[in-house]
């Protein structure tokens, strides 16, 4: 599906490097290990050594990046920045694999128009999520405001909203379009969860749920997004390994 090297410009060359299976594989493994490792370590340190006794039912996720809650706020900041950066090759790869563009006669037939529509939307929201997640790490709770602008809140809304909306479109794509990334029947539970899980928890965060703290709801949204992204990443890595 790639153009001839001679026809490529530098942007295409970078794009091809970023979406090369090897890059996506390493980025995928690294993001899983780094993100889950750093967040788990951040929670553990905050709970054991933090001055306020961190707990997911009483503390927002962002409190992991606040120096009055944890002695090492940098752990969560690094987790956000690395997750935001390392998910970009993964998003580009998903887009390329679910909606490949025929470059030569051998690549035909092209996928259905819906593959392009859904991955186009999924790509946009995922990129928005990734970029804003980098922003969550940069504008952590300690550096949350620039002047009167609540940068941390804006980035948090953008990140969670971006990933939740992306999950809807990519979930629909996994369930209803022809794709080879996630084999049947696994595409159905993963796709259906993507369509309803993250957005449902995002709505609960806005409306609130009786008897559940808003802090726990925020954590639940993160778990809902992880329950969508982790299997997707696993299957993508499996697919890359199979391609070799």
């Amino acid at each position, binding site marked *: 599906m790639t153009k001839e090297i001679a026809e490529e410009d530098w942007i295409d060359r970078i794009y091809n490097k970023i979406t090369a299976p090897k890059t996506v594989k390493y980025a995928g493994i690294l993001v899983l290990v780094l993100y889950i490792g750093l967040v788990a370590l951040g929670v553990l340190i905050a709970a054991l050594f933090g001055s306020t006794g961190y707990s997911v039912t009483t503390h927002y996720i962002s409190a992991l990046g606040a120096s009055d809650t944890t002695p090492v706020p940098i752990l969560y900041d690094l987790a956000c920045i690395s997750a935001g950066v390392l998910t970009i090759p993964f998003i580009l790869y998903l887009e*390329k694999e679910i909606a490949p563009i025929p*470059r030569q006669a051998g690549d035909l*037939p092209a996928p259905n128009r819906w593959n*392009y*529509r859904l991955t*186009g939307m999924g790509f*946009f929201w995922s990129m928005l999520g990734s970029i804003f997640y980098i922003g969550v790490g940069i504008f952590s709770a300690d550096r949350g405001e620039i002047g009167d602008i609540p940068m941390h809140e804006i980035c948090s809304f953008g990140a969670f909203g971006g990933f939740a909306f992306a999950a809807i479109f990519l979930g629909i794509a996994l369930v209803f379009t022809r794709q080879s990334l996630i084999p049947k029947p696994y595409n159905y539970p993963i796709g259906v969860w993507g369509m309803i899980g993250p957005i449902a928890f995002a709505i609960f965060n806005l409306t609130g749920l009786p008897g559940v703290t808003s802090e726990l709801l925020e954590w639940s949204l993160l778990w809902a997004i992880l329950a969508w992204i982790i299997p997707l990443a696993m299957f993508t890595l499996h697919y890359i390994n199979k391609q070799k």
Partner: protein
Amino acid sequence: MEKKEAETNWIERAYNKLIAPKTIKICGYTAIVTFFGLMSLAIIVAVTLGPPGYNIIDNWISDMGNHYYTPAPFLLNAALICTGILLVPFHFYLERHLAPIPRVPEDLPAPHRMTYRLMELSFFCNMLGSFGMIMVGIFSEDRDIAGLHFIFSMILFGSFAIGALFMGLRTTFLKQSVFPKPFNYILGIYGICVPSIVGTFAALYLSPLWEWIIFFVLLGLITPIFVNVLRHAESQLKQG
């Protein structure tokens, strides 16, 4: 770019009928006559026969769908519902011709990946805008249930403004055949800058005048796009 008739299912056949140049031509002229005709009539009736004296400084566009301001609120509602429906084939047509998918080797080379991204985003926003338009007509000020009129009005203006941004980027920076040069640059840059800037002000200063301004700004973009699409569809018809 089309599959052979025998290879298509009924959805694809309906889709092909919907975006056939002939359908676009019929829908296009009907939409122009319906929208401008009914809107002008709605304004004239509200200004001359409406009890409180309708004007664009003090009255929202939606007030023309309220029986308190006009004796004929159905004019605006009908204009919105009909235009919203008639715009749908246009969104499909633009998507197909601005982001064509190669189906046979003669269709190659395929457009750049960015073409598909921008066009699909624009398509989604425009479809949402059309949906909002139909809903604003259905849930008019007279039939406003649970604030749905305001919600759909925001969806209508917001979606078209964001759709214009993506469409502007597409027509300015990537190769296309629907809009002739240098017209594509003027239209594209207008689409990128004006609706989003004016839309932001309109959202910040929610007032009838700002609503009318964003309305005319969007009309200033959609009308030339519309005319160019009609011109393109007619040239396609001539080519057979």
